[in-house]
């Protein structure tokens, strides 16, 4: 029955990776660059919830599902605003510059957020315990124990995926996103406001990152300003695994990576190298199928 426990842990971990990977892949889809600061938005989401929890706790009974919902929504809104702001200030002025310039700027933004938050005047570098947002409840199935948040994480992810699919496929702004991803110049000629679409994409991706950050913090021992780096890297790998720019691919890649990591972590001997597994997968994918599992193979033409 041990494998069932692993499966549930893996699904929970993988769902979080999937949520983060969606943000990477959406931004890549419209702007063709990797938003390095995405992992820091995730961290900011967790911190927003950390500071909101006591405030909401004064109005609503602590550890209620409604309170948790409000905290998540407000944190997601804050992070969406931060994401839009980052794009506006740092990436928009560089829209037509060489890609390398944008990439370096993204690394700079990521470092700026991390080190500013590590400064004692902001959050400080120490690890803080994350408040419990929902009542704790364990399900017992034979000799395995399933925590309710481990069940909640895949459910929330599935709901968000469905919502995202509706937004992208069924709304006007979603159609505009797909148009910009397909060909920004042509989209602009057809009257699509590219700046608005890009802002919306950043906002949406950052909101998802914030929710992922809160879910991650609920399962982690604590939160600190560098907490986003590891899940961020994993999620990036998940996005590449699924095929970057491809939304179902990101979800699939996240789940696969979470499951692989959890199961490999359970095998004695390999568990020491658990951290290397994700990178080994990345190298393997890039060597044999650089477009990812669901991505389409493109050759560069002049």
């Amino acid at each position, binding site marked *: 029955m041990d494998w069932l426990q692993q499966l549930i842990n893996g699904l929970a971990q993988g769902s979080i990776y999937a949520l983060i990977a969606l943000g990477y892949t959406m931004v890549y889809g419209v702007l063709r*660059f*990797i938003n390095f600061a995405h992992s820091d938005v995730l961290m900011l989401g967790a911190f927003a919830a950390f500071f909101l929890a006591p405030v909401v706790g004064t109005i609503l009974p602590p550890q209620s599902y409604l309170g948790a919902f409000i905290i998540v929504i407000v944190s997601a809104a804050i992070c969406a605003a931060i994401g839009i702001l980052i794009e506006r200030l*740092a990436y928009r*002025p*560089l829209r*037509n*510059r*060489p*890609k*390398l*310039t*944008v*990439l*370096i*700027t993204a*690394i*700079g*933004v*990521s*470092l*700026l957020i991390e*080190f*500013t938050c590590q*400064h*004692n005047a902001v959050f400080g570098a120490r690890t803080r315990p994350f408040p419990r947002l929902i009542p704790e409840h364990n399900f017992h199935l034979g000799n395995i124990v399933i925590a309710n948040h481990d069940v909640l994480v895949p459910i929330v992810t599935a709901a968000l995926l469905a919502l995202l699919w509706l937004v992208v496929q069924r709304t006007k702004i979603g159609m505009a996103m797909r148009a910009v991803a397909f060909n920004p110049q042509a989209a602009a000629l057809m009257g699509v406001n590219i700046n608005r679409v890009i802002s919306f994409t950043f906002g949406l991706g950052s909101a998802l990152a914030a929710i992922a950050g809160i879910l991650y913090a609920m399962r982690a021992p604590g939160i600190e300003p560098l907490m986003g780096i590891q899940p961020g*890297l994993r999620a*990036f790998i998940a996005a*590449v695994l699924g095929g970057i720019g491809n939304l179902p691919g990101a979800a699939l890649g996240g789940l696969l990576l979470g499951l692989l990591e959890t199961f490999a972590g359970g095998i004695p001997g390999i568990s*020491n190298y658990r*951290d*290397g597994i994700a*990178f080994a997968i*990345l*190298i393997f994918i*890039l*060597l044999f199928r*650089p477009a990812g599992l669901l991505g389409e193979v493109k050759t*560069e033409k*002049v």
Partner: protein
Amino acid sequence: MQLGAKRWLIAAVLVAFGVSALSGYFNRYYLGIAIDVGISIILAVSLNLINGHTGQFSLGHAGFMAVGGFTAAKLTLELTPSVPAAAQPALFVGAMLAGGLVAALAGLAVGLPSLRLKGDYLAIVTLGFGEIIRVIFQTSPAFGAATGLTGIPKFTTLFWTWSAAALTVYVVASLVNSTYGRGFLCVHDDEVAAAAMGINPTRYKVTAFVTGAFFAGMAGALYAHHKQVLKPDGFDFMKSIDVVVMVILGGMGNTVGVILAAILLTVLPELLRGFADYRMIVYSLLIIGLMLLRPQGLFNLRRRESRSAAAN
């Protein structure tokens, strides 16, 4: 240029020799900083070959430095007792070259798969490789695991450091200015056009990567025998970022600018000790500000303006 470069090399080695002959008169603290500056120059100029001249953004330079440092330190720790004192400088040079070569091999192993990628992918993969290298040293008992190596003999002198720095600058500058080396610039400017002209981009990228890794390994060896203590923690992502900031500040592909930036960024933190808390914040602001306002770097006065325009 070639003749000039060779003359500069000889002049620099002579200066290194002359200054190190007088080093007994220096304050040990200043001597230490002078050696740090030399190591920074090696790192920055070698990374500039990869990131600047060839335009392949690598974030794993500290990993290669670690490979060179640990290899060389392990060698000298094992062999020093059995080598007569007179032969120890030769041992050190041998260890330094061995460190460079092993780092170059690591560069080849990393470069071959990852250099088929571009831009963002490459940055992440090199970052990942750098971290993997660090984790390997952290978990292998032969290299002291998390405590690292201690009691490394103090072989690094001002002469060796500055000579190695001069050699690095010479090799990188003359490589880029040679007929062969024009290929690096072509790959930087337009890979597709370069391939159409019969230049194999992957080959050039791997060459740049392996050469850069070799010198990073040498820098690691110098660092190990300067600090006498090696910890895997010291070679994390932030160390790579330090070098990247030097290259960006100096202007990617501008050797003189990068040397100036390496000197500035090594001396400045020593002068402003209280600034330590803010160092990385200032670095990141510097990166963003330079990319927004002056992507050609702070010290680039004329050379690459046409090129950075062409890169669009």
